[in-house]
């Protein structure tokens, strides 16, 4: 069993546990085991296609698994997985004044932009 460390934002799904044990021989199978035991974690850790949520970083011991083989990275039972948010500040824009979805005003190149304002 590998050890998985759970960040505070996910601990509601693990009954408050800071770390849990999960079985598996790759990062992907350990996460599958984890979400099987704690189904509430699945929406946060996985996307709709079963891949890793792009807002989650997974570290095997101290290395980001994206520097390794991602979900196929082999895992030993002495290993520790750390889950953390892939932090981003975001840059939400008010949106194009013409009502389209092409993007923010200063970047909008849609025909409606010129008349909007």
């Amino acid at each position, binding site marked *: 069993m590998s050890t998985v460390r759970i960040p505070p934002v996910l601990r509601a799904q693990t009954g408050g546990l800071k770390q849990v044990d999960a079985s598996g021989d790759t990062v992907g199978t350990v996460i599958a085991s984890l979400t099987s035991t704690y189904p509430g974690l699945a929406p946060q850790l996985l996307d709709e296609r079963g891949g890793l949520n792009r807002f989650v970083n997974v570290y095997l011991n101290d290395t980001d698994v994206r520097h390794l083989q991602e979900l196929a990275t082999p895992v030993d039972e002495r290993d520790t997985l750390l889950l953390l948010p892939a932090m981003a*500040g975001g840059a939400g*824009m008010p949106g194009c004044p013409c009502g389209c979805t092409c993007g923010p005003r200063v970047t909008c190149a849609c025909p409606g932009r010129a008349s909007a*304002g």
Partner: protein
Amino acid sequence: MPTQTPTTPASPKLDVAGVAMPGSATDSGSATERIQGLRCRNCGRVEVLGPSYVCAACFGPLEVVYDYAVIRDLVDRATIERRPPGIWRYLELLPVSEPPARGLAVGSTPLIAADRLGASLSIDRLWLKDDTRNPTLSFKDRVVAVATARAVEFGADTLACASTGNLAGATAAAAAAAGLRAFVFVPADLEPAKIDHALAYGATVVPIDGTYDQVNRLSMEVADELGWAFVNITLRPFYSEGSKTLAFEIAERLGWRLPDVVVAPIASGSLFTKVAKGFDELVTVGLVEPKPVKFIGGQAAGCSPVATAFGEGTDVIRPVEHPTTIVRSLAIGSPADGRYALDLARRTGGSIESVEDEVTATAIRSVAALEGIFPETAGGVTISAAAQARAAGIIGPDDEVVALLTGNGVKTPDARSYGHEDRPAERGGPGLAPVIAPSLAAFERWLDA
């Protein structure tokens, strides 16, 4: 007390010092109306305003939600123009209830017409936003000021950060001014001047034997476990909003209009995207007319995950595990806002340029020698990015270009001469003169030799 005291002619209210402040107690209702809460950028889930940075439902990043209709009624050009200098003149577009009682004098840095540098780059209308002049010599004072004001409003007693250097000094100084403790986490191989800078303000500096990304990961764990107010982690939704003040100042200085092109460095990508957001907000609240603006970013070739993705035409930003560049302030291998920066450059017809360190060093010398401004390495990257984009035709000869110089070269003095030997001075020329005796005769002998 190092405090800024903006005034607002509309509904002026007196604070305890008898100075009119926008958004002070008696009109604080406007703050709760204009700042609506936090919203997940990914799933749209809304949370109440608090020291949160990640969505509990999907792990997506949180951002501050404003009611722009309310803000539009609160500000106009004349009101802002009557206020004293500093970032708080734009209070209504910042996620803070009122200007802090204690804080540094941040912002209102010069926008300088760079004719000589522009001529060397074949850019006729080049402006330099000189953010080397902020209290701790970088733009980080802007983001930290906003984060600190919010931290105080949230009742924090300790500020912390994970830093590539400039943020360390900015956080340490802001904490000192606000009367808070400060812990700064930095890569142990950071330039000594930047570590000394943070120590000078009384901060505890924690050097980590690792890259910035490893420092950042550790800081996230510390933030989560100890509940400390990390300005660029737990307070990130507020912190990042501070970069918008660059956009506000540029537009106001240009006579309430937008430039054709903005050139900025990209580390996390936050500054780059928030300048665009700032322009958008000015349009939304009716302070400037809408106008397309190209966004051009610069990264150091030794750590250029966003520039690489741009060049390859992919949306996938591959992290750089071991950055190798003299540009420490941009050496973020896993840029938090990289995908947003990539999207912005593409959508505006801009670009993200990768710059070799020797080219950066040459650009630092050019800016200093031609304009009298000594930028740090990120400024060298920015000017080089402008040069490369001009050469590629992305910047046109008649474009009005604003380049952001985000940090001061005195913090990275060795970078200037990277790949370049300082020459001894010849008569009347630049360089280091020989040691001469303290007499006019000795000086004249050398000058006439």
